[in-house]
């Protein structure tokens, strides 16, 4: 079957999707977006966490056909998503978003050509295509093997969107569905606290 939905702000189509296929499989294997990780396939680990119409879900447990006409944000689109939220409080026009090509080529550092064209920016750390939560994970040393990181980033970003000054209990609960087998939890908590303290997730709507 064909499934059409919005991924990171742009409309995408997937063909020949098997009816029992998960959203995670479509993202990784059909759209070339391997940021969402495939691990437990039973909703235990949270590595595949994406936003579905704004809500964090395990994409391994969403049937591809259920996403028809809906909006998905993956870790590849997180930086743009956060930027739009900070600038405009959302993307009402539908004109913004991350193209599939950009999302597929997403990396935490600008490409060489980008570096050359905006060397000054990269010196200051600006325009490095990171969302505040991603930068906080790096700064706090919250990434070890990195496998759980995409899911944690999506979950943590959503927490800070809802609650710009979460308590430790709030953070633990929001991340309780994401497992880190390196057991780097303390630094992950540090990263979320750091991002909250920096306050860059605050949007105009929250008035803070």
């Amino acid at each position, binding site marked *: 079957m064909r499934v059409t939905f919005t991924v990171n702000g742009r409309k995408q189509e997937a063909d020949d999707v098997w*009816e029992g296929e998960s959203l995670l499989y479509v993202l990784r294997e059909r759209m070339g977006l391997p940021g969402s990780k495939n691990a437990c396939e039973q909703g235990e680990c949270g590595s595949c966490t994406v936003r579905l119409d704004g809500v964090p879900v395990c994409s391994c447990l969403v049937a591809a*056909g*259920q996403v028809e006409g809906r909006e998905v944000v993956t870790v590849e689109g997180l930086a743009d998503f956060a930027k739009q939220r900070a600038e405009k409080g959302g993307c009402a026009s539908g004109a913004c978003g991350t193209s599939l090509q950009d999302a597929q080529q997403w990396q935490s550092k600008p490409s060489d050509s980008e570096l050359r064209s905006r060397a000054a920016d990269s010196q200051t750390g600006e325009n490095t295509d990171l969302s505040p939560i991603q930068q906080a994970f790096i700064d706090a040393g919250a990434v070890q093997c990195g496998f759980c990181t995409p899911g944690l980033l999506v979950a943590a970003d959503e927490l800070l969107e809802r609650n710009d000054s979460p308590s430790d209990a709030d953070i633990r609960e929001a991340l309780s569905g994401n497992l880190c087998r390196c057991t780097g939890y303390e630094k992950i908590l540090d990263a979320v606290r750091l991002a909250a303290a920096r306050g860059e997730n605050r949007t105009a709507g929250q008035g803070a």
Partner: protein
Amino acid sequence: MDFLRPASWEEALAAKAELPTAVPIAGGTDVMVEINFDHRRPEYLLDLNRIADLSEWEVGEKTVRLGASVPYTRIMENLRAELPGLALASHTVASPQIRNRGGVGGNLGCASPAGDAHPALLASGCEVEVESAARGVRMIPIDEFYLGVKRNALEPDELIRSVHLPKADGPQQFSKVGTRNAMVIAVCAFGIALHPETRTVRTGIGSAAPTPVRAKEAEVFLAAALEEGGFWDSGAPIPPSVAKQFAQLASGACNPIDDVRGSAKYRRHAVGIMARRTLGWTWESYRGNERSAQCA
């Protein structure tokens, strides 16, 4: 496999009537696990996500009509006052990601004895609204809903539309044993609801028998003890002997097995402990409310 996407409840009922083997999928948190692991290859998947009505709830004068697909997150956030027992149980379901997708309809449809909602549903004394294209709506009392391990009272052409739960008329509690605070299938669970209006107590036990069950003897014993001692009126503390007997009877209502999550012996023991504790919590809350009502 075919993926059916009815746009309305009527279309869904028609599809289920025509294709009774179609497996309904709402949150997908159970069905997709089975498909991902190749444990199940349904001929038809019946997606219920487009039926907005299933994700809505109505708070009436006496009851709450809870759509089958209302996510646990919504129950926790919005129905804590009306359905405290179910809200507490919802909060123990898996993780935020799962609670954002899963709902009571899935717990009922799957009818696993370990489903977290069951003890609260049993303790509340709710009814399950099911419907078929041929015979219309049928209300199934929760006490008659669970028939066996993963078997329920649904006919092949029926779908679960909603659950009608009486609004709480007294304190309710829920307790669950697991190895961590999240992402845990209950080793066993216990729900209790005090019903001061009828001066009764209802309970629900999860994961300690082939189906979710009530501890009926414990309920009858406790209601009689509370009545005879004038406790509903006096609000006096429940004597330890009464709490102990209640716990023993609750333990006796279990018919557990040994499995990877725990032994039968442990489950019996733990259910007794949870029965005593949750009784204590609810009764303290009842007494507290009584006192504040008198002060006001």
